[in-house]
């Protein structure tokens, strides 16, 4: 008996528990589309430098802030975390279908001036599985991260419109964290998205 015959004989014991029915596929497909719709609300997190130092570090609190989404002022709850190194992490919920192209926080309700930064966000990065391969989409670019992402994380650089972006992806195709950092001059801004 050849190795192929031995191998096929040994694995012939493996059988699925039943035949797949078209009704099962259609039901599961419908269920998946509902899950995707429910996940439409994304969380935008980003870190911004702030020259003002605060005594309490490592704290997280929620504040009402006025946030400009695409030029429109919206008062919303923002989770602020003092990272203790002069940076603050800001996190807020934004419906995916209203993804802003620009975010600028102009008031945090506490009198602090946080107008010194503006986060450009033309489009949230996202993962897409196509023909079994995993692609990271960001703005007008995309990069195949299938091999790198096999262990649950992927890191690399992508170039678009003359800018270099450093990305870091972790999680799964369904639930992931994506961090994209763009270096421009002596400043850098870092944005993190969760899905």
């Amino acid at each position, binding site marked *: 008996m050849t190795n192929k015959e031995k191998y096929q004989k040994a*694995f012939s014991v493996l059988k699925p528990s039943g035949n797949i029915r078209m009704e099962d596929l259609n039901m599961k497909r419908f269920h998946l589309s509902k899950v995707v719709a429910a996940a439409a609300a994304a969380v935008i997190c980003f870190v911004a430098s702030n020259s003002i130092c605060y005594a309490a570090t490592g704290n997280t609190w929620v504040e009402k802030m006025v946030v400009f989404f695409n030029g429109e002022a919206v008062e919303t709850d923002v989770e602020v975390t003092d990272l203790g190194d002069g940076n603050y992490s800001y996190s807020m919920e934004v419906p995916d279908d209203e993804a802003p192209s620009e975010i600028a926080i102009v008031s945090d309700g506490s009198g602090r001036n946080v107008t010194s930064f503006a986060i450009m966000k033309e489009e949230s990065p996202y993962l897409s599985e196509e023909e079994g391969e995993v692609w990271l989409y960001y703005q007008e670019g995309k990069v195949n991260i299938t091999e790198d992402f096999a262990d649950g994380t992927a890191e690399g650089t992508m170039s678009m419109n003359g800018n270099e972006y450093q990305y870091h992806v972790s999680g799964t195709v369904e639930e992931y964290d994506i961090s994209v950092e763009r270096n421009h001059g002596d400043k850098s801004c870092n944005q993190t998205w969760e899905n």
Partner: protein
Amino acid sequence: MRQPVQMLIERYQNSLFVAAFQICKNREDAEDVVQDTFIQYIATKKEYESEEHIRAWLLRVAINKAKNVNLSFWHRNRQPLEDYIETLTFETKEDGELFETVLRLPEKYRIVIHLFYYEEYSVQEIAGVLKLSESNVKVRLTRGRKMLKDALKEEWEDDK
């Protein structure tokens, strides 16, 4: 070209299940992967060159989905492999040893070994399915065979 899903299920369900099991090492996860693979076939409005092209596409999608399952939380709550193996009835003791030895191989060698010996793909075809270079596939195949030979001794022939 495209083929009716029902026909593809009848032809490839078992093959995809075994390939997915090679990675997930778990019946429930492998069955989910097979279902998701056919759902992706339905959802993907892609034209294929031939039925062989469809088969290779289905295998590639199933393998990649199985890898993703291994990274997810739910995978950890499934039936242990040892418990499942106990439910299988092998024709001979050697069949069971070969089965368990293959499943102990590192994943990157295991899937290449599987595509070669079970699906009867050539090195070139495996490279196409896994999107690897042919030389990479050859290396993995050689190392996988050596591991099988070391473990199974005279039960595994030396392949040329």
